[in-house]
């Protein structure tokens, strides 16, 4: 195939305005507004129960918003002439009848839009399902189910792709495959909206992050900004004069935490500054270790107040 052929101008985006969803008394999504732009992977991050899946389901009209709206390329999903050509969605790996073969599932999905057998064969090859295409889906592993979901999402060659927790439960090979695949789709100019509850996964895949907690947007920024903002470095200080040192460090821009006897965790002053200060006052220091907060910690810090199921999200 000649390069560039088939590459369309994917200037399609998802726009949510004041989007809300309530289930009875519970508010799953609370008045959120955001835009998902083409040509990059937008990560949708949040603890379990934050409202990510509900938001994605509203994009394709499976859930009806209680308030506000979400559009794809300026129109509600259902109003497009060829919905599968606009958005491909992997919302649930097992959104497939278990008694049907993978191939028949894809043929049935394709038929709605007049998509031919040739394209079905292509997405089967694309997702590496050739050997199991004629087998019934009931016997599929989670990884094969995920591939079939991606094959179905790709049927209409959509400009926008939604992936809800696509690597959940996959083995390392499957995780790598999904990651590469998603990056590749974004490089073609498609709009990719990818959810996960794992910050580390997002750091590998996403360009932009929308962080959701308790149904509200906490952060909407490029991944690099989120990481930079969340990772204030800390210094681990061990000293027999810990309490004297803590008094000396007591300044408005410095935070000191006493982790245990003789140990301080200092934020706001770097290791050199602490060492110099201790030397000036002739205080012995036994350990002085700079520590950079991990992405997970940055994420925890962001969502600390917004964790629905604390025991599940924080250990």
């Amino acid at each position, binding site marked *: *195939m000649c390069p560039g052929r088939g590459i369309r101008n994917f200037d399609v985006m998802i726009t949510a305005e004041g989007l809300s969803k309530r289930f009875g008394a519970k508010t799953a999504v609370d008045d959120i507004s955001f835009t998902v732009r083409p040509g990059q992977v937008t990560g949708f991050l949040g603890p379990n129960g934050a409202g990510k899946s509900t938001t994605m389901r509203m994009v394709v009209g499976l859930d009806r918003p209680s308030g506000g709206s979400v559009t794809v390329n300026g129109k509600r999903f259902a109003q497009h002439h060829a919905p599968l050509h606009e958005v491909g969605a992997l919302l649930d790996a097992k959104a497939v009848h278990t008694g049907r073969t993978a191939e028949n599932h894809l043929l049935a999905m394709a038929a709605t839009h007049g998509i031919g057998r040739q394209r079905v064969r292509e997405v089967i090859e694309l997702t590496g399902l050739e050997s199991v295409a004629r087998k019934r889906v009931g016997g599929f592993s989670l990884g094969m189910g995920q591939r079939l979901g991606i094959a179905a999402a790709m049927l209409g060659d959509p400009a926008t792709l939604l992936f809800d927790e696509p690597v959940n439960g996959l083995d390392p090979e499957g995780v790598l495959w999904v990651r590469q695949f998603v990056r590749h789709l974004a490089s073609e100019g498609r709009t990719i909206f990818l959810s996960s509850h794992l910050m580390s996964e997002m750091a590998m895949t996403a360009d932009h992050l929308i962080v959701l907690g308790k149904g509200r947007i906490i952060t909407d920024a490029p991944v690099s900004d989120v990481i930079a903002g969340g990772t204030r470095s800390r210094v681990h200080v061990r000293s027999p004069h810990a309490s004297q040192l803590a008094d000396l460090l007591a300044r408005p821009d410095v935070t000191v935490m006493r982790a245990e006897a003789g140990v301080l965790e200092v934020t706001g002053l770097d290791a050199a500054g602490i060492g110099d200060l201790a030397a000036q006052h002739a205080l012995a220091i036994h350990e002085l270790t700079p520590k950079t907060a991990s992405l997970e910690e940055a994420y925890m810090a962001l969502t600390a107040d917004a964790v629905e199921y604390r025991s599940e999200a924080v250990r």
Partner: protein
Amino acid sequence: MTTITPTATHPSQGVPTMRLTFGGVLRSEWIKLRSLRSTVWSYLIVIAIALGMALLMSLSMVNGMSGGTDISGAPAGQQHELVMQASTFGVYFGQLVVGVLGVLVISGEYTTGMIRSTLTAVPKRLPALAAKGVVLFVATFVVGAIANLGAYITSSIVFGTDLELFDPNTLLTLAGGALYLALVAVFALGVGTMLRSSAGGIAAVLGLLLLLPTVLQLIPADWAHDIIPYLLSSAGMTMFMAIGADDAAIVGPNAWQSLLVVLAWVGVALAGAAVLLKRRDA
């Protein structure tokens, strides 16, 4: 498996005519219906029941009669009536099978999660329900017609009577039985859509077809007995069994009125299904 060909995600020839159409949704539902084993089995059972029941009924009628009177001596009209009774007897059991099938066509999508794929491809939703209804109706009617025709031929052979396939009453009775089966399947589709559960849907449909007439029969009140002819299964039997019969001999609605009663049942089930399908989150 883990490598990706850079250009492979695009269709080789683009997809120029891609568009969601009702014809496409019909084709999709047809593929879905025929690609499940439960469908194939259900339809084979309908045919087997029709032929088997026709054979059993005809044999027992012929034997029972030849013990007392000579069947060939009976009036032609009476013989014809017996043949028609024997050849449509299977419909009574066939309705249970297609009722279960009609529920499963939609409840199977809810229990497996397939419904989310269906409604993502057809986000306006009602075309998907309509296409399911059309496909199920046509397929069940064709199967029912084959089953009833086979049953009629079987009965005629056992009775030793001539085939009167072009007799309007014969044709209408056989086709009417098939029509009733198709309508029960569509009715069950509506119930299954409303209840979204295989067990609940099947219980509701079988309860209505089998249990309700018996229960009403047992209630010692006139109103209960007056309702019975208007039940789906009673009206359904009347709509093809009473074709050509003298209206005066029928208690309750005649064949054509019964057809309207059956259509009303189906219409109410489909209307409820449409409203709930459109309104609920999937």
